[in-house]
């Protein structure tokens, strides 16, 4: 068993990425992502990889795209503000089928729409994993490198300042998630002059001597691919939802706090439970539906104006049972969560919401 190491989320993500075979990283500093860039800068060369402090986010993501197209396990990242700059490139990677892991070490939970709806062009989706703590971040990082290659697509890890800066004892062990498809598409030069040279292109028209599916065929196939991903890759965790009168839906760090509150409420006789989407996309709708089947109230707690709320509205068993108990809450620095991310505050909001239907007094 690997030894315990006391690592913050940025350092843990670096070690996990290296364990998963990542050998190229390019990014631009922005809090709280900066620690990840710095630890990659220190550790990747030690592992035989390359880390470039790119001169802009757009350059960084395109460097990662090139590295991945040439066959390296590549990653980039930023916080949501920088991921905003990368939207075109993320769409490009989805549509030219280049596997890259994108770390959104976000400042809060306000990037849910950015991850799950995307701001690029075309019909594409990005698998997004939202860990609740640093040990899970380690697992998700390794799984994302596998998912990226399994589906030849850009994938996102949704982190936050708590994950980035909290140091936790974790073990980093290599993990095997299963077989991967052939890498016969990568650009290594060997196709040159053979009549069968390779091409990575969103329009996928191929070479005149070896035509490809073209934009219609390519983009329809990719849409079908993401449909298949949506069926195959949903992940969620249901905690004490059987016979729960109140089910609270939360993701990431927020879910950690909600779980604590639920444990407290249960010890006081209040039948509460937690539904935690682990994949923000594909959203685990059917599992949510089952988890909320018997709930009198479905409370949505997220640190934003209501983004996952849209997905809960789509899937909860009873839409009328939904109440939003989250909100925008920002620290005075602007860089992390504000006072709403606190177990006592959450507890009070649950009790207040529950009082409406008499579930809590």
């Amino acid at each position, binding site marked *: 068993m690997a030894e315990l190491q006391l690592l913050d989320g940025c350092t843990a993500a670096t070690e996990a990425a290296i364990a998963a075979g990542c050998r190229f990283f390019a990014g631009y500093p922005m809090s709280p992502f900066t620690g990840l860039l710095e630890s990659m800068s220190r550790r990747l060369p030690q592992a035989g990889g390359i880390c470039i402090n790119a001169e802009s986010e757009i350059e960084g993501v*395109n460097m990662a795209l090139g590295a991945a197209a*040439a066959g390296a396990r590549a990653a980039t990242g930023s916080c949501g503000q920088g991921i905003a700059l990368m939207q075109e490139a993320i769409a490009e990677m989805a549509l030219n089928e280049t596997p890259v892991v994108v770390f959104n070490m976000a400042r809060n939970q306000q990037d849910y729409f950015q991850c799950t709806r995307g701001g690029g062009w075309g019909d594409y989706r990005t698998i997004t994993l939202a860990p609740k703590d640093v040990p899970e971040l380690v697992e998700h990082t390794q799984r994302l490198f596998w998912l990226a290659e399994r589906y030849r697509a850009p994938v996102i890890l949704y982190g936050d300042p708590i994950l980035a800066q909290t140091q936790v004892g974790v073990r980093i062990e290599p993990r095997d998630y299963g077989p991967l498809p052939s890498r016969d598409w990568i650009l290594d030069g060997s*196709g*040159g*002059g053979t009549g069968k040279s390779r091409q990575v292109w969103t329009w996928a028209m191929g070479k005149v001597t070896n035509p490809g599916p073209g934009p219609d065929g390519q983009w329809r196939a990719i849409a079908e691919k993401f449909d298949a991903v949506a069926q195959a890759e949903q992940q969620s965790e249901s905690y004490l939802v059987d016979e729960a009168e109140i089910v609270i839906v939360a993701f990431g760090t927020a879910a950690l706090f909600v779980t604590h509150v639920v444990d407290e409420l249960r010890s006081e006789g209040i039948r509460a439970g937690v539904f935690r989407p682990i994949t923000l996309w594909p959203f685990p709708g059917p599992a949510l539906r089952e988890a909320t089947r018997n709930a009198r109230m479905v409370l949505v707690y997220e640190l934003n104006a209501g983004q996952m709320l849209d997905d809960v509205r789509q899937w909860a068993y009873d839409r009328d049972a939904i109440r939003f108990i989250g909100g925008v809450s920002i620290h005075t620095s602007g860089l992390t969560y504000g006072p709403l991310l606190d177990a006592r505050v959450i507890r009070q909001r649950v009790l207040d919401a529950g009082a409406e239907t008499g579930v809590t007094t």
Partner: protein
Amino acid sequence: MTELPVVDTSSPPAEATLAARSHPDLILGEHGLCPGCGEPVALRLLLEVLQDLDVVSRAIGVVGHGCYGSFVQIMDVDVLQCLHGRAPSCATGIKRVRPGSVVFTLQGDGDMVNEGLQEVLHTAARGENVTCVLLNNGVFGDTGGQQTATTVLGQRTKTSLQGRDASTHGYPIAIADLVAALSGVAYVARGAVSTPAAVMHTKKLLRSAFEHQLAGEGFSLVEILTMCPTGWFVPAGDGPGYLEQSMEAEYPLGELALRSRS
């Protein structure tokens, strides 16, 4: 009265067909660009240089967006077609993870000097061992002929109908000069494909650039002035002459002196 022979025009003459169909191994088919376009000439030179240097089986190209973008379908080398302006960044990623490969970009002036100005400058300053090839015709050909950052003063485009005027449209950017002023740069040259002599000279410049890459000496840029009679609103045959008069004055041909060598 003299009997004139009737010329059979039901199909091109054999010689023309032969000329159209014979192409270097690395060009897989005919291009679909305008008559008089200089870009296919530049492509052919680039691929011939790769062959002459015997690096075809480790060559990886990154092609931007423009009329030349269609070359990804007819060039028999491994290629990535990338986002407008971003080719030097993609090339960086490729070369860093495959240092034994020979990496080039193929970009128009709109791609490299408009959208991708910071990419090419940063890649040059980092001294990345890649060769960027700029096809400079001073116009956005693919979108119908708008002004770019290299459009020369007086040039008429769809967005500078009376001719580019400094007070309204600002000045053109000589990207090769900017790159030549950066440390980390091994070779910068400017050629043209307007005359047979210019074509031969440009081939030598390309070869020098790739030789610098192979020697690991840093970033190389070859700017190739190409004719765009359609974008310039001149007859196809007038392209070369127009290029010489309008562009070569602004963008003198030859190898540029480098800061890194001074």
